[in-house]
């Protein structure tokens, strides 16, 4: 019984995390990615080497940033539960 309520709480926490995360991603998507498109296309056409470096840097930074965001959200939600 106690285990089941613990599992339900975890699922609830996860859903809260998912919704909060979706809001962040939605804002990021429209604020940042929309404006990057033309600049990246220009780099792709004119300076391929710089484009390659920027592309790798963008995906690495996004990977680390989203990891930090999901971890922070997870911790925050755990603290609320306590």
């Amino acid at each position: 019984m106690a285990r089941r309520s613990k599992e339900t709480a975890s699922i609830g926490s996860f859903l809260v995390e998912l919704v909060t995360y979706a809001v962040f991603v939605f804002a990021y998507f429209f604020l940042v990615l929309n404006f990057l498109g033309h600049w990246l296309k220009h780099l792709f056409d004119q300076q391929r080497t710089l484009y390659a470096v920027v592309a790798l840097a963008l995906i690495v930074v996004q990977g680390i940033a989203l990891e930090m965001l999901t971890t922070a959200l997870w911790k925050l939600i755990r603290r609320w539960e306590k």
Partner: protein
Amino acid sequence: MDFLISGTHISPVYLMVVGFLVGILGGFFGVGGSFLAGPALFAVGVPMNFVVGTDLAHIVGKSIVAAKRHRILGNVDIKLGLIMVVGTILGVETGAQIIQQLKRHRNVDEVVAIAFVIVLLGISAFIAWESWQTSKMPKAKRPARPRAGRKPKQDASAIAYVAKYVHRLHLPPTVSLPHSGIERISLWTILLVAYVGGVFSGFMGGGAGYVRMPAMVYLLGVPTHVAVGTDLFEVVISAGYGTLTHALKGNVDILIALVMHTGAAIGAQIGAMLTQYFHGTRIRMAFVPLPLLGAALIVYSLITGHRL
């Protein structure tokens, strides 16, 4: 949304959902998920050379998240991962050069798509057969089912003798991998496995975990959980190189990768947590239908010429 670099028009929600599903699978099975992400991109009209390069870029961001989680869980053999990086990078460059040749001959879509289908069917059939054989083994020979939070020290496999045979090949130099429970193995064997995986990665995109992960389990004898984590760790570095080399060759639409990755980041977190509740055979058995789904998407696109 228009993706100017690859000249495609794709719904960002579709990309995020694909990324989310692939993220769960990647975190759970330790594979990049290119067996699904590649066909899913091809099915909405992304040219195959962009599918390959873009998927590699998306894998970098996703694997950072999942590899860190697996490292915390103790599933990463750093020594093995670093050795494999060398072979993989050489293989990725070979694969990327093959793509360039096909681009010049203007048949990259057909050749890579057909290769994708053959490989996916082969992998699916092999893992199904092996998992079936393992499940028929007497219970006494199988390790106990792990409890949540615990991992088995050994992994059951019906063809464990193959790995034992490989371990007996003492072609110098040899290395020991205590974290993976391997006393001694030839360095050349590891490099060869990594190189072949790298060729698939450079040629078909993604981390090629669908080739490397089974090869690590069945040929090198690495426990499934360690193979999952080590593969992800190694993929971060080798896919990073793959992204650079493919971007230089004009095969990466980084915006597609960034949008897909926003979904993958959260999915990878869930997938990595799920590995704690299943043992190796069950993970492998659950993997079986996934490459088939990818193959079905490609066959549909090739035969009908339609895009989703």
